[in-house]
Each structure stands twice: as C-alpha cells, then as structure tokens.
C-alpha cells in the first residue's frame, strides 16, 4: 500500500528538504509554465475566431504534467480533454493540439516515433474512455507486456456507469490500470458536494477491491510519487489503482461557459492561493533551485515556443473535403467513387 493511513491527502511540497530529484522538479516546473502560456494563447485564439471550443487546463497543470513525466515509453495514455500537458510530454507537438481544438482531424495523427503514437486521442463524451482503457490494459496483461495504462477523467465522470464498470473489471481481472481523477470541484456548474455522497472519490476504489489514493493535485512532487508508485505497481502485475488528485478548475468549463454565473468570486480567489505553479516556484526558489533571471528567460522561451506553434497551426493549409472519406475507409467502396472525385476538386475551409 502507498500509505499506512489510506485516503489521507498526500502532500510533498511542504517537506522537500531531502528531495533527491531537483532536476526532475525544475523540468516539471518548466513544462507547467509552458503549458499555461499555451493555454492562455489557445483561449485568445478561440476568442478571435481562430480556434473552436476549447477546454482550458488552468489549474490542472501539475496533474497533467505529472502524468506525462511518470509514464514510460511503453505505457499507454487514455486522456479526457484537459490533458494538453500530458499529450505534449508524450510527444504531440503543440500545433497538433491546436489543430485538434481547431476541428482538424490531422491533430490526432500523433507522430509515429513518439510514445504518443500508443495513446488514444482526447475523449469529449464523459468517461467513455475508461472502459476502452480497461480494454487496452486487458490486452497488455494477456500479451504479458511490461506496460501500464493511465486513464484520466474529471469528478463529473465518476458518476458515470462507465467509471464503475472500469474499476470493477480492473479489480477482478487485476488489470495494469491507473485511473486518475482530476477532482477540480466543478463538473461544468455542478459542485463537488452535489456530485457524490461518498466520503471521497478515492473511496470508490473500495467497492472494486483496488487501492484508492488521494493526493494534492496542486503538488507536483506528491503527484509524481503517487503516479510512480501506481504505474510501477501496474507494470509488475500487482493490480490497479484509483488516484484522486484534488485541484481546482481555475478556468471556465470551456470557452463556451461563464463560471462567474454560478461560482463565487471569493471561492475562485481562495483557490488561486493554492495554484500549482506558484507553489512549486516558491519551493524551488526557497531551495535555491530556481531564480528570477531563470524565470524571466523561461517565460520568454515559452512565449516564443507558443508563437511558433500558433504560426505553424495557422499556416497549415486547411483540410480538403475528400479527407472525410479518406480518413474513414482503408479501401473506398466503389459506390462512393464519384463523390470522392467531386470532393477532390474542392478546396478546404478553416474549420474554427
């Protein structure tokens, strides 16, 4: 078991003095800053008609970054839709993430030479990715792979049947699966206290007979410890784990939402006091692992990287209409031949 006292919220940032992994933490910090810069830009692109509806990851940077850093090359990642950092760390270029949210299917063709090529694309329907993750884990177990599957969902997803079904088979078949819930307190406008009467989301592991762990989702080193443990356990055939990472959704649900209509400004203000990036920076600066000059340089670097990604995204020629047939059929049915011919004469339009 990970902790002698189950379901206590695991934290690490306040006791880092003996940490032997400073390099890993500064790398994590850099990734979190980069993805926040990207996130802000993506929202602005949507606001100016250059991107479709977008789900911000503001406040989820530590969770998604920890996932990307803890996964090994041979593992599988099954995301929901706030995992831009994990996808980036698995090898998806930022411009492809923009393509996906711009409605361009080519954003889902992850580069073949990266770990991302083993992963599933974003899943927008709530929790339907979880049984698929259990399926991949079953395959990994049956073929004796030394690999784990990490699947994510939000707190709203834990009310779905798919979630319980997944935990159930993960327990009874002892699958190499880690389900990480980003409990960010809000499922669109439904607050946590209306989501479940369970003592915590992690407690739902009890019914499936698997281990449940609660961790501070704004604490990168704590998340890394939990995921290292759970993924290693999975790879060694020692069973599945449910991880509840407790965070706060600092953004609207998506760009089509306005959280100020149902959420108190004071609550949001309080949540900002615990946001993951400032907390990690504070710890790194205290330990003399990071300074103001590095910060300035890195922020400029993030802006340059994101601007490059936006440029690549915007300069990409739009998809052509014939792609909708080409991406669907390996061999085109004869009856669609003429349609394909007509479509192939048409230019594409930007979708967003």
């Amino acid at each position, binding site marked *: 078991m990970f902790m002698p006292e189950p379901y206590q919220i695991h934290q690490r940032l306040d006791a880092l003095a003996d940490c032997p992994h400073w390099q890993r933490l500064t790398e994590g910090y850099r990734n979190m800053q980069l993805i926040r810069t990207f996130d802000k830009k993506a929202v602005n692109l*949507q606001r100016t008609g250059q991107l479709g509806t977008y789900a911000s990851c503001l406040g989820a940077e530590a969770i998604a970054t920890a996932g990307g850093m803890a996964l090994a090359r041979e593992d599988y990642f099954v995301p929901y839709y706030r995992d831009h950092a994990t996808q980036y760390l698995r090898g998806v270029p930022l411009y492809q993430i923009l393509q996906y949210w711009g409605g361009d299917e080519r954003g889902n063709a992850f580069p073949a030479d990266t770990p991302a090529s083993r992963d599933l694309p974003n899943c927008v329907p709530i929790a339907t990715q979880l049984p698929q993750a259990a399926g991949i884990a079953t395959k990994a177990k049956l073929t004796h792979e030394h690999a784990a599957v990490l699947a994510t969902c939000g707190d709203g997803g834990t009310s779905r049947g798919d979630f319980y079904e997944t935990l159930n088979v993960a327990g009874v078949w002892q699958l190499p699966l880690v389900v990480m819930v980003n409990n960010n307190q809000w499922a669109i406008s439904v607050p946590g206290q209306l989501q479940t009467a369970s003592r915590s989301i992690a407690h739902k592991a009890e019914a499936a007979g698997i281990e449940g762990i609660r961790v501070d989702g704004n604490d990168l080193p704590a998340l890394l410890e939990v995921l290292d443990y759970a993924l290693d356990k999975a790879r060694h055939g020692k069973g599945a784990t449910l991880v509840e990472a407790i965070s706060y959704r600092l953004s609207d649900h*998506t760009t089509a939402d*306005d959280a100020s209509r149902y959420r108190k400004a004071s609550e949001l203000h309080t949540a900002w006091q615990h946001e993951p990036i400032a907390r990690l920076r504070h710890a790194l600066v205290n330990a003399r692992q990071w300074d103001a000059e590095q910060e300035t340089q890195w922020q400029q670097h993030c802006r340059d990287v994101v601007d490059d990604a936006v440029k690549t995204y915007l300069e990409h020629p739009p998809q052509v209409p014939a792609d909708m047939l080409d991406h669907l059929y390996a061999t085109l049915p004869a009856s669609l031949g003429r349609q394909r011919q007509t479509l192939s004469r048409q230019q594409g339009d930007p979708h967003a």
Partner: protein
Amino acid sequence: MPYFTLPDLGEGLQEAEIVEWHVNEGDSVKVDDLLLSVETAKAIVDIPSPRDGIIGSLFVRNGDLIHTGEPLLAFAGDEGTGSQTVVGNLESQDDSDNQDHFVIGAVTEGHHFGGATPAIRALAQHLGVNLEQLRGSGPNGTITFEDVQQNANLKHSHGDSTPLKGVARSMAKTMACAGQQVVPVSLFDQTSIRHWAAHTDITLRLIQAIVAGCQAEPALNAWFDGSTLSMRVVEKIDLGIAVDTPDGLFVPVLRDVGNREPDDLREGLDRLRHDVRNRKIPAKELQGATLTLSNFGTLGGRFATPVVVPPQVAIVGAGKRFIQPGINNGALFEDVQLPLSLTFDHRALNGGQAARFLAALLADLSAPPM
C-alpha cells in the same frame, strides 16, 4: 482595410450584445490586448486583438447587437492580411452555414437561417438583401427567389428594418410566447367614483380593490403551468405594475400588497418607478408577479384587452376616467366613471371566477373611502 469580424464565441450562438469597448479609434494595440467585452446568451466574453495594429474604425457601439461574421472593427492601413478566419473581405464572411457544432456539455439549438442556393445568394448580394434577416418560404425554410425580391422591393420603398434591442426585444419575445399559449377572455365594466376625494391616490385604490377581488376569488392570484396543466393558487399577492418608459415596457413587482399599509405601498411604488426610470432595477424585482395591473388610463384609452403573461392567469386594466350623465331619483347629475378591463386565461379560470373577482373589485372601488 482588414476587418475583424465577430467569431462564434459559444458553440453556435449567432448573436452577441456589445457590453463595452476598451479601445478607441486611433489606438495602437498588440496581439492579445483586450479589445471589447460582449454578452452572448451564455456568457460575458472578453475578446482580445487577433494581431498588432492601429484601430481604424469601430463599426458597432456599446449596447449594439451583432451577429457572427459581421465586422466589429477595421484595422488602419493595409499592412498584411493576417489570418483568413479573422481578417479578409467581408464578402467571404457570409458563409453562415459553416458552423462549429462541436460540443462539450449541453447541446445548443440550431439557428433560424434556412439556407439558400448559390444563385439566390448571388441575387441577394446584387440587391443588397441580408439573407440572415429573411424567413424562407420554400421547403424546410429555404429562401426563394420571391422572398429575396419581395424584401428588395420593401427595402427600396421603405428603407431598412431596425432590429429590436434590449427591453423591446424581450417584450416582443415574451408577448409572442404568451400569445401562442394563452386563451384570453376579457370582461369590461365601469363604476362611479364621483364620491372619491379630489386627491385620491388612484393606483393605491386600485391595488386595494384588487386585494378585495382576490379575497372574493383567490384563484385569480395564481400560476398556471400549461405544459403540465397544473395550477398553483398563491396566497401572497405580488402585483406586477406596468410602467411605460422611453426604453419600453417594464413590469416591476410590488410585493405582498395584501398585507401592507397604504403609506408603505405608496413608498414602495415610488421607489420601483424611480428605479425603473433610472434603469437601476435589479432583475429579481421584475420576476415572480402573481397578478398584473396596467393603469394605462393615466395616458389614455377606456377599455382594453391586455395580454396575460404566463404563468399568471389574469391582468387588470384601468382606463381613463370619464364623465357621463347619471340619474338619481329621476334627476340628472354629472357622474364620474372609472372603466375597468379584466383579461383572464380561460385554460386556468372560468367566467364565473373572473366575474366574481371583477364584481368584488368594483364593489370595493365604489365603497366610501376608508
């Protein structure tokens, strides 16, 4: 001049109201600088600048209603064209059926535009007709040749139509909805108020009479749900008072009129009117009426059939006082009459209930002053 047009800000929402511009013509802006705030049906949204540049012209003002694809502003000069989705010729922006239907969460409704063939689009462009404002008469709401021609003729002889905004717009929607649902029946009557003192507060007397009417027939003070055909008689009388303003019709709610002293009521009434005129009335003060009074007689008119707004079941209208000859023991005298109209929803009430209410109301008005 490169244009910046209103993007689709929330999963197929086709219109937005300008809340506030944060820049002026002539200002220099950088990419991602805040330009303006708009309000859609779902959210208040801040829109940043898509590029560096100098603001040339603003095409809409605070409070204006704008549709996706219509220009917000033009950048000055001609330096570069920027992204195709944002900046370009206005002609290329009318492709309004190219929408994003990607959804996380609730599904939104489609829009009203029924579509048109390329030839109809070309005709419309030639004649300067905005297809978005047409209701198609063809199959599935498609726009026909005749629709476009008719609209062009109208435009030629009478100029452009003006879309309703704000209060007027919501009144139009509310009334259309009420008109489709309610089965209205009206009763008219009048009563002598010759005995009233010169400075009688007519509105207060009317409110007291309505309370008396509700005591005689409580079912008039109720909410009716047409979809479930269920009725909820309400004990407390929260009276909607129709107030005419230059911006349109407001109906603020005077709470619990059955249990308040006249001075208190007058003070509450004055405060509501004052707040409405200054446009400072909170939205909740306009909600939850159980019955409505329209005292249109202060402006003119004798009898009327005012519209019952669901879930309410009735509305009382008071007309302008008038003088008519009265007879007392065979002798003529000059009488003062107050005309009253009562419209009720015949789904929720029957004629007997309405008549009993009106009779009690009239009896109270003709009683000697308290």
